[in-house]
Each structure stands twice: as structure tokens, then as C-alpha cells.
């Protein structure tokens, strides 16, 4: 298990490094000069040359990539173009808001989704099974930012039940301000997870080891939890692991729509200001978290199902 974990970790580090390299290469191959982008069309050639130098853009491409990797090891992601503050500091100030938002979203939706999926598989064709089937088709076809707009429209504008602007003050305020955003991001995952768990439960229920457990007279509850669900939950775990990327995309919209602080709002603001170092730093941190989430979900599956440890 440890060997497997280490191998997977090494691969993840390489993937993140390649992702960064791709971004830096893209910056080079596309027409246009980031220095000109930042300074605007009327900047003097001297100023452009100076900015290029301070951003390290005058160096050859491989050197730039290596310098960037070296700086990351020192925890240095570059400097804000306007305020000269450390990008790492700015990004890590905003990151907790986003992490809390997507964790809450995925926790409530995965818990409800797995429960609904289990129930639907064990009690097929009951009204709750049918309802969750219809609900999942309906919610999956609504993109999260449209869902967020409707959440604002219905619960904040029409009903006036919940606030729709900002992240709130204090613990109580933060929780109340988190409800609508977490709902908007999570709702489509409930249906997704429920359908997936239902389908894989039905498949696993027909496996030989389940029949054997039943023949041995194990209690139904024990069979369901430790012999069926343990295997049947795996596709959902993979789905959530790879879904973290979608969660970050959804967080961008939800943070903008609910005027919340967070890494998504930071990226949008920095794109508007053409603050390239912050965009690069924020994309890098997001990508690293996504790769880490995929790694964790693979390890969870390896822990749930020893058969998976063999393959890399």
C-alpha cells in the first residue's frame, strides 16, 4: 500500500509540473506580449523592457520554466504586478473560502447522494426511487451557474429567506451565507452520485461473494454495508475525485454571483486586471489541489478494494 501510494504521489508531482510547463509554454507561443498586456498599448519600449525583465520574460523558455519550479520550492509564486505583494500570500488568503465552500458542497451532496442511491437500489421502483431518478436527470441538465442564479432569484429575491451577497461575519453569519452557494454547487451532484451508486449497487448485489455471505447467514445490514456498499461506492469515489476540477469551475461562478471572496473570484478579478502572475499562481494552486484530490480518491479506492492496488 505504501509503495503504491508513493508511486502515485510521484506521478502526481510530475503531472503538476507538466501542467505548469504547458501554461508557461502557452504564454510564449501565443501572439502578444504579457508585458504589453499588463502595461497597455501606450507603454514606452523602456518600460516594457523593464517589466519583461522583472517578470523574467527576457530569459529563454527552459530557463523560465526551471526558475519557476525553483521558486515554487521556496514557496515563491511571483509578485502581484500592481501592489508587488507576494502571489502566494494573496492566493492562500483566498483559498480557505473556496475550500470550505466546495467541501461543504461535496459533503452534503455525496452523503445525500449515497444514501438515496442505496435506498433506490434496495427498494427499486418505489416512489422515492422514481423521484430521485427524475430529479437527477433534471438537476444534471442545469449548469451550476444557472442553478446559482435561480437560487438567488428564488430564495433571496422572491422569498427573501437567505442572504445572497458576501461571505458573512462570524460563525453564524458564515454558515447562513454558505447555504445558497453550497446548495447551488452541490445539487447536481446529488443526482449524479445517487444514480451511480444505485447502478453499481445493483451490479454488486449479483456478485457471488454476496450470495455466499447470505448463504453463511450474515445479517442483511452487515452484507449491505461491508460487502455491497464497500465495492459499490467506488465509482462514486472516483467520480468525486475527478469531479473536484468541476467543483472549482463551479466555485468560480458561485463566488462571482454571490460576491463571495475566494480563489475563483480572485482569478476573475485578476483576469480583468490582466494581473498575469496572480492568474498563473492561482491556476497552479488549483491544479495541484485537483491532482491531489484525484490521488486521494485513488488511495481511498485502493484502501476499500485491495484488488486495485496492483494496477498503476
Amino acid at each position, binding site marked *: 500500500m505504501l509503495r503504491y501510494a508513493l508511486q502515485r504521489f510521484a506521478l502526481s508531482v*510530475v*503531472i*503538476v509540473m*507538466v*501542467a505548469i*510547463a*504547458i*501554461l508557461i509554454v*502557452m*504564454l510564449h507561443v*501565443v*501572439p*502578444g506580449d*504579457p508585458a504589453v*498586456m499588463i502595461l497597455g498599448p501606450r507603454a514606452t519600449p523602456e518600460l516594457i523592457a523593464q517589466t519583461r525583465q522583472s517578470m523574467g520574460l527576457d530569459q529563454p523558455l527552459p530557463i523560465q520554466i526551471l526558475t519557476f519550479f525553483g521558486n515554487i520550492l521556496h514557496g515563491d509564486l511571483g509578485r502581484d504586478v500592481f501592489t508587488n505583494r507576494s502571489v502566494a500570500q494573496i492566493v492562500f488568503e483566498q483559498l480557505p473560502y473556496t475550500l470550505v465552500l466546495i467541501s461543504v458542497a461535496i459533503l452534503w451532496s455525496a452523503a445525500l447522494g449515497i444514501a438515496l442511491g442505496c435506498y433506490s437500489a434496495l427498494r427499486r421502483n418505489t416512489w422515492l426511487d422514481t423521484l430521485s431518478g427524475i430529479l437527477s*436527470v433534471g438537476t*444534471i*441538465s*442545469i*449548469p451550476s*451557474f*444557472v442553478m446559482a*442564479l*435561480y437560487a*438567488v*432569484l428564488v430564495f433571496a*429575491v*422572491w422569498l427573501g429567506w437567505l442572504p445572497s451577497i458576501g461571505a458573512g461575519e462570524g460563525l453564524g453569519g458564515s454558515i447562513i451565507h454558505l447555504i445558497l452557494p453550497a446548495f447551488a454547487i452541490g445539487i447536481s451532484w446529488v443526482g449524479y452520485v445517487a444514480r451511480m451508486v444505485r*447502478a453499481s449497487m*445493483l*451490479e454488486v448485489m449479483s456478485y457471488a461473494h454476496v450470495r455466499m455471505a447470505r448463504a453463511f447467514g450474515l445479517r442483511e445490514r452487515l452484507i449491505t454495508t461491508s460487502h455491497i456498499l464497500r465495492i459499490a461506492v467506488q465509482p462514486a469515489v472516483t467520480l468525486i475525485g475527478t469531479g473536484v*476540477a*468541476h*467543483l*472549482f*469551475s463551479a466555485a*468560480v*461562478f458561485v463566488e*462571482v*454571483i454571490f460576491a463571495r471572496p475566494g480563489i*475563483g473570484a480572485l*482569478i*476573475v478579478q*485578476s*483576469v*480583468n486586471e*490582466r494581473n*498575469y502572475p496572480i*492568474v*498563473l499562481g*492561482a*491556476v497552479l494552486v*488549483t*491544479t495541484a489541489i*485537483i*491532482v491531489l484530490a*484525484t490521488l486521494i480518491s485513488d488511495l481511498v479506492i485502493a484502501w476499500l478494494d485491495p484488488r486495485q492496488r496492483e494496477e498503476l
Partner: protein
Amino acid sequence: MNETSATSPTAPDADDRLLSEPSLLTRSLRLVGGNRSGAIGFVLVALIVFAAIFAPWLAPYDPTAIMTGPRMAPPSPEHWLGTDNLGRDLLSRVIAGGRVAMLVAAAALGAALTGGLSLGLIAGLGPRWLDNTLLLIFDALRSFPTIVFGLAVVTIIGPSLFTVILVVAITSIPIYARIVRTQTLALKNVEFILAERAMGAGIARILFVHVLPNVLGPLLILASMDVPLVIATEAGLSFLGMGVRPPTPSWGVILNDGYNFIRNSPWPVISGSIPIILVTLGFTFMGEALRDIFDPRLRRTH
């Protein structure tokens, strides 16, 4: 949904089928006829494509003309979906936005299919090191969230219709390429391909006669199911002001106007979102039906 398609249409003539397999067209019609959601999907997609092609003739007003009626009007006989904050006719804007959405979807998926096919074939047939390098790049590209990656690209080349197409193409290529690669690797050592090679068939013949037809079907079905994703990405980036730029109507731009005036009128948000939801339902249902028709092995077990 799929249970009906699997059983009802073929049940009565099960014996005949052993003697003569009905043509693909017959089977398709039966499946679509017996599959309610598939039929709904085909109708929705047909309507949307029709509206996109004939947009300029269908729209009752010029989609960018301001003050065609009162501002923020609710639906009325003159303006079926109401008007926005500049008094523009929402129905005309939704129809024109559909044209933009379809254009982006066609261009982006076309580029993604072409890129995915060629890179996948190169990875599958090329030497080991090339395969590994490409796989690593695919994995790295897949670890960017589409919207975040899109925003990074916008910082570099600025917002435009082309940027949206580029972003979707780059983020979709790895997915298609991986499928093509797996299929190619699986086919590489199958006996009939080995036999062809033993008979002296060149790589081009093997590619075009054997590999491509096997790979293309599942790929096209996947692409049709990806249309909603592309459209949501276009609408999302345009909503943030990072995609299609304002005077051009796009569903995302309509939604952004609606968001800015959400406390004054719900109609722009409602009319900008309904086509996105209908497109998603239409293409998803159609994709599932297509999958059932062309590749029963891929049928999801419910």
C-alpha cells in the same frame, strides 16, 4: 428510460430476427419510437439546430436593436419572452444566442475530434516513449478545471469567440485522444489486423479501413453528448464577460444582463437559462439513444 427501448419494440418478432436481421434504419426507427426520451431528444435537437440555422428569419426583432418596447417588460403578445434592461426583445436575443452556441459547439467539437483522433492514433501506434509523453500531457491538461483554464487563456489572448473555441478544444482533446488510443491499442494486436499486416497491408490501409471505422462511432456519440458541456462553457465564460463580447447576443451575455438586474425582472434570467437546459436535455437524450442504436455494448445497466 432504457428499459423500454431494450424490450418492447423487438419482442413480437423475435423469431424473424434470427432469420433476417432488420436494417439499421429499421432498428433505429424502432428504438427511437420505443424510447420516449430518445424521441424527445431528437425533436429538441432538431428544433434547436433549425432555429440556429434560420435565426435571422425566425427572430421577430433585430436582437441588438434597443428600445423595441418598454424596458424589463414581462412576456406579452409583442414580446413573447419579454424585454431586457435596454428594451431589447429577449426572444430574438435567445434565438440569435442559439446560433452563437451552435457555432461554438460545432467548431470546438470539430477541432477536438480532429485533434483527439490524430493524437490518439499517434499515441496508440507510435513508439512507447511518445505514447508516455502524450499520456502525461493529456493528464496534465485534464487536471485544469475548464473554466479556470479558460480564464488563464483569456488573460493571454483576450476574450473572444475564438478563445472559447480554443479552450474547449484543448480541454476536450485529451478525453477523445485517450479513447482513440485505448481502441487503437486494443485493435493493434487483434488477429484480423495481424492477418492484414501479414498479407502486406500498409499502415494507411489498416488505419482507414479498420481502425477509424471502429473508433469513429463511439467518438461521435461521445461528442454529441459533450455538446451541452461546450455550450455551458461558452455561456459560462460569456456570463463572466470572458467569452462572447456584449453586443453579440449569447445565452451567457443574456444571463449576465439578467443577473445585473435580477432584482428588477426575472425574465432575462429565465429566458437565458431555459435554452441551456433544453439543449442539455436534448443532446443527452439523443446521445443515449444513439448509443443504444449503434453500440448496444455501451448500454448502461440500470
